[in-house]
């Protein structure tokens, strides 16, 4: 598969997913798959709330989006950069370790039931 075809496929998938997430409010309808980790443990995983966050973002509610999953929203420009310029195989290893630490730390912090960490929970 050429890079061009690959980019078009990725773009089509993103547009399709974005359309569904825009049209359907995850708070109201249960058409989206539910996070298995949250279901089993009751804890918030680093991705929990991301669908609701993107729904709010697509409706222009930046603050509400950050409230649901700030990590996903902050990571979005980075993900975009990686998709366009991305060659993750030549990425400096230190950045992958940083990413791992950030994701795990976010997952731990948002489960602390004390203000201000409760802001991170969806």
């Amino acid at each position, binding site marked *: 598969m050429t890079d061009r075809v690959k980019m078009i496929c990725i773009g089509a998938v993103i547009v399709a997913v974005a359309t569904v997430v825009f049209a359907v409010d995850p708070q109201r309808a249960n058409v989206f798959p539910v996070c298995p*980790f949250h279901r089993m443990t009751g804890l918030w995983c680093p991705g929990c709330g991301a669908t609701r966050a993107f729904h709010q973002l697509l409706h222009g509610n930046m603050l509400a989006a950050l409230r649901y999953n700030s990590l996903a929203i902050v990571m979005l420009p980075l993900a975009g950069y990686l998709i366009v310029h991305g060659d993750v195989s030549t990425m400096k290893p230190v950045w992958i370790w940083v990413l791992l630490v950030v994701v795990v730390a976010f997952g731990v912090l948002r489960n602390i039931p004390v203000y201000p960490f409760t802001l991170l929970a969806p």
Partner: protein
Amino acid sequence: MFKIIGGDGKEYGPVSAEQLHEWVRDGRANAQTLVQAEGSTEWKPLGQFPEFAQAASATMPPPVVMSQPKPNIPNYLVPAVLSTICCCLPFGIVAIIFAAQVNTKLQAGDILGATAASRNARMWCWIAFGAGAILSLLYLFSARHYFIFQRFHRFRYD
């Protein structure tokens, strides 16, 4: 004309005998380097070619590695992160750790280690995706889901 297999396992050539002599002088090929003469299908060590044997033995303990194009070893970082966030957190984290190891080892020049880490990263991505899919299917067919569906409960998570 000759083709050779470099220290990196890749095929180089076809090149002329003069060029191959130059590679031997530069230490890019040695007596153990596999060479295929044009018109032949057999790969033989360079030392077995009479025309190169002398030149090759003169540079006997040479560096094995040819000019090193960085091998492309996938680290599966994107599926690893996706599986962590959407499917199964614990297994996804393992996949990210292996993805990071691929790049760390590649940077250190440990190609075998990087390949092994790459295989592990791929395996754990699949385990995470599989675990997430199985758990979701189990949930879909569980009574609790139908209860929630009927009551049209507000979902508190996604």
